[in-house]
């Protein structure tokens, strides 16, 4: 951190100022002139919260993607399909048993099992052939998409939010001041906050597992140089299978999350594939903290964009990607 400030004083200042401005926008009571210029604070705060929680969802999808890519150099373009399938499985379980938690567990296990099968039956046979693996994942995504369309039809499904999570919660953030001097606070759906906290917990656990455990050490060594890792006697195929299972399982969980706060339907696979691609390109390929930062940026850009410039929102996301590629092609937090 301090080394970054030493090396890039101007950028540090810009980033610091942006963060300060952002914090001020969130916590201060907006002066009337500002409200006239860009609308009410409530709209802005909701967009920010939607962006942050959407970022949590994007992180769940993209972290699996980046983990698989980092270790195996496999650009898994079927990742969106895994997400969508997780959503369908979660919907089935929650509709059948009424348990939301069980939906997560089953979706994780089922999609992770598919990941294991894929790694075992398909990708192990073409190890080291990046392009061919990617082609295969494209073929698989087509096949999966059509199979799911066959099985589930073109309908929208929404996973039932459990009763204890329904309803808004009041946050200690002022949106406006009434003329009587009484403060109005922001109301926000509880379920989105809970899900966001969940994804933060998962992110922290993943970071701990990667940085503080032996398996994590092996995975990190594999990201750096898998040939040498294999040469030191580590059973690398097992590590590959484990990582693929974890990455796929995370996509499955993300599917349940997406099915709860949005909906699942054919076409969502592509949307989330794009989101993970952009998040990973922005954040840095193969880096978990990068995925978190990228997800946050993209989630915020998407939501703020769709509030303030509705017909050009996607362009903002895209411009961020272009900017990152132009200034730092390896991604914001990648090492190299």
């Amino acid at each position, binding site marked *: 951190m301090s080394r970054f400030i030493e090396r890039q004083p101007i950028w540090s200042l810009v980033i610091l100022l942006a963060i300060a401005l952002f914090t001020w926008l969130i916590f201060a009571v907006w002066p009337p002139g500002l409200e006239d210029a860009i609308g009410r604070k409530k709209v802005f705060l909701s967009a920010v919260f939607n962006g942050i929680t959407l970022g949590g969802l994007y992180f769940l999808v993209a972290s699996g993607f980046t983990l698989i890519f980092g270790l195996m150099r496999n650009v898994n373009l079927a990742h969106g399909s895994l997400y969508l399938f997780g959503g369908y499985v979660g919907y089935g379980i929650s509709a059948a048993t009424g348990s939301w938690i069980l939906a997560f567990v089953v979706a994780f296990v089922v999609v992770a099992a598919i990941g294991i099968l894929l790694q075992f039956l398909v990708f192990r046979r073409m190890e080291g052939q990046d*392009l061919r693996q990617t082609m295969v994942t494209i073929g698989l995504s087509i096949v999966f998409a059509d199979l799911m369309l066959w099985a589930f039809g073109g309908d929208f499904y929404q996973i039932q939010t459990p009763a204890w999570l329904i309803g808004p919660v009041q946050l200690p953030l002022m949106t406006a001041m009434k003329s009587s001097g009484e403060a109005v606070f922001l109301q926000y759906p509880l379920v989105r906050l809970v899900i966001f906290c969940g994804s933060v917990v998962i992110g922290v656990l993943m970071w701990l597992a990667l940085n503080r455990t032996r398996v994590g050490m092996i995975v990190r060594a594999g990201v750096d140089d898998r040939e040498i890792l294999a040469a030191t006697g580590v059973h690398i195929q097992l590590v590959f299978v484990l990582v693929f299972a974890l990455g796929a399982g995370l996509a499955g969980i993300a599917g349940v999350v997406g099915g709860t706060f949005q909906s699942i339907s054919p076409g969502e696979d*592509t949307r989330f594939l794009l989101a993970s691609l952009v998040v990973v390109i922005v954040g840095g390929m193969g880096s978990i903290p990068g995925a978190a930062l990228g997800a946050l940026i993209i989630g915020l850009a998407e939501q703020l964009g769709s509030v303030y410039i509705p*017909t050009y*929102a*996607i*362009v903002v*996301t895209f411009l961020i990607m272009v900017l990152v590629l132009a200034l730092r092609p390896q991604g914001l937090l990648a090492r190299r």
Partner: protein
Amino acid sequence: MSLIQEARAREGMLAQPGTAPQPAAWSVTEQPWAWAVAALLLIMPLIANGFFLIEIFGTTLILGTIALSLMFLAGYGGMVSLMQLTIAGFAGYMVAVFGVSGNANISLGWPWWLATPTALVLAVLFGTLGGALAVRTEGIYTIMITLAIGAAFYYFTNQNWAIFNGHTGINTIATPHFIGIDWRSDIAFYYLTLAVAVACYGVVLYLSRAPFGLALQGVRDNPRRMAALGFNVNAHRIAAYAFAALIAGLGGVLQVWNYRQISPGSVAVERCIDILIVAVVGGVTRPVGAYIGAFIFVMLRTFALDFLVKVGLDGNRFRLLIGLGFLAIVFWSSDGVIGLYERWRKRGQHRDTRPGGHGHG
């Protein structure tokens, strides 16, 4: 790049025995199939009726031309770009926006001879900028970035109403009339697509042997060595993107004239991937592969429904069939149908030559 290099290596092995009679490569006796196909394509309007002429052959030529642009990038440049259809779609949209269409509030109403070149120039610009982004990273990342560009463009056309008219798209786009011919009438349009396809094919063939094409192939095989020899690696790559964008743009213009409408569905991510499928199924080492792949794809798309129903399956499973076919090709032949054909021919040659060799020995 293993897929392409592998196929290249095999082609190199194949080429060695047949290097002696080079000058005769264009004679009728050397390539009877090529001449037969060329003659057949020329007299096609005498054989095929409107449906086959446009829906099968016209569409094949258009799709093949777009796939040719990907073949050029992937085969000679080693860059698998998934945005070629996006460039084609962008050219189509620009024809609709600058030219005449049913959406008078959007279209500027320029005559075709002004709107079409403008669309092509903008498409080349789009492709060049996209390429300049994509060459910032290497190899496998190219797919990710170009796919992201394609998907972003699709979502953009969906949500933007000012230029792209949202998800309804632009309809009843005018097609050119000049020298007294309606160029959208079946036979005229067929010859137009044929002429464009032949021109693009010829230019790609020429470029593959021209200094630029050879340098590009050098960059594909060993960028560091080429850089050390003084070639500007990134400039060559971006130039390749620009040239491929021109070809894709031509295909896109023809496509929008063919359907007379364009909507986000025409530039969806699935369509982008279709182009990759067409190129890979045909084979990315030869320009002709793009057209072979396009023909197979169009035949499947048109007749798969009847075929699937006939064998007692659900006719809607066309994409499943395409996906499985693509997987099979990627699994077993790294060079698509061309690779299969050449393997088969090689086996035939072995059978012919082996007894002779024994006799001499």
